[in-house]
């Protein structure tokens, strides 16, 4: 049997509600049914955007997993989703029906936009600068399953610690904040210079007030959070956009293409990037390879209107790509 059942177009006969029905693998369009080593057994990958699952749903998912996993186990996928292991393919229709009844969906595999991953984000993580969970939900609703030349992975990190590994994604969005300093409330306490881990802030030896080096700043916002008087404030929040990363046998590091892209531009960035990839890429080629072959500057030219002033220089982007 094929590795991914979604690629099969044949029908098999299965018994459903006492009567024999045809199971059309083609109807299981989203994919997410992955062949196991064991004959007739599959892993069913559920859709958990951002790895977030309400507890009432988790209880229901547990019951379904317990019923259909021949070995009574689940696995947490590397993209934060629950996978029910050891499912007999003849049980697919019943399993899908039960999942639908609780309002849960199956994930995807193959050449399409995958379930987005995300860290906790600004909702509850003190480091978080962007609402990564809300954005992951948006991507899942708007772009999940969109056909592409190869797999297309999107992730959201809420801050420069980058737990969601945007450097390894086809398209990654990492939260950033631009700090702004105002003299009046500053007492010259020097905490900001201590709090900055990048050496982007030094204290004036006489006044203790900050000397800011934007070139060294990675826009984490530690200075803003540490400042006791509010002299350091957020000028603007947004995303550092990375493109063309991948892991696998031959990892590639993503190229940084835009800075301080606001939340409301994220859907357009994704849409236009996929449009460019579909027009310039080849079947079986990740977008990182397309960028290498066609040139990052061609992509940036195409994205000119979307990125606007937020674009990072093509030269900068290209030399980072090596």
């Amino acid at each position: 049997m094929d590795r991914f059942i979604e690629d099969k177009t044949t029908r098999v006969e299965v018994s459903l509600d006492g009567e024999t029905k045809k199971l059309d693998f083609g109807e299981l369009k989203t994919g997410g049914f992955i062949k196991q080593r064991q004959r007739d057994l599959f892993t069913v990958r559920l859709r958990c955007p951002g790895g977030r699952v309400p507890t009432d749903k988790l209880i229901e998912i547990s019951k379904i997993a317990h019923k259909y996993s021949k070995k009574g186990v689940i696995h947490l996928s590397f993209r934060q989703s629950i996978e029910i292991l050891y499912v007999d393919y003849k049980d697919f229709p019943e399993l899908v029906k039960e999942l639908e009844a609780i309002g849960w969906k199956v994930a995807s595999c193959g050449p399409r936009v995958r379930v987005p991953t995300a860290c906790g984000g600004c909702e509850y993580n003190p480091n978080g600068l962007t609402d990564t969970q809300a954005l992951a939900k948006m991507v899942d609703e708007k772009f999940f399953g969109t056909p592409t030349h190869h797999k297309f992975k999107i992730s959201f990190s809420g801050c420069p610690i980058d737990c969601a590994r945007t450097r390894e994604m086809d398209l990654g969005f990492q939260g950033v904040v631009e700090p702004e300093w105002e003299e009046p409330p500053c007492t010259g306490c020097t905490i900001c210079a201590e709090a900055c881990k990048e050496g982007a802030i030094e204290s004036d030896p006489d006044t203790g007030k900050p000397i800011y080096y934007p070139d060294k700043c990675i826009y984490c916002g530690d200075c803003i959070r540490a400042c006791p008087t509010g002299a350091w404030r957020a000028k603007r929040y947004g995303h550092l956009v990375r493109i063309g990363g991948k892991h696998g046998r031959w990892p590639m590091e993503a190229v940084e293409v835009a800075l301080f892209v606001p939340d409301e531009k994220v859907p357009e960035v994704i849409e236009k990037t996929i449009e460019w990839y579909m027009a310039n890429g080849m079947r079986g080629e990740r977008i990182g390879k397309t960028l290498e072959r066609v040139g990052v500057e061609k992509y940036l030219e195409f994205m000119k209107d979307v990125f606007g002033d937020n674009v990072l220089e093509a030269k900068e982007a290209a030399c980072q790509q090596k």
Partner: protein
Amino acid sequence: MSAEVKPVDTLDLRGVLCPMNFVKTKLKLESMQKGEVLEVILDSGEPIQNVPKSIKEEGHKIIDVKKEEDHFRLLVEKGE
């Protein structure tokens, strides 16, 4: 700025690692009344990078900071 403010207590957290230094500060503040001031002494490096952020996020106010050699002396006013 607040040289005349009298702290009700002092926590010398030199040599205490993260996050225990914050936990100790938090517990102390919880035993105090709103508006009372606690003096906290923190090492440079990780403690001064982290503890003031957490104090602020818990709703307290840092009203004075003094750097003394390799440590900092903070005055924290208890919030809600």
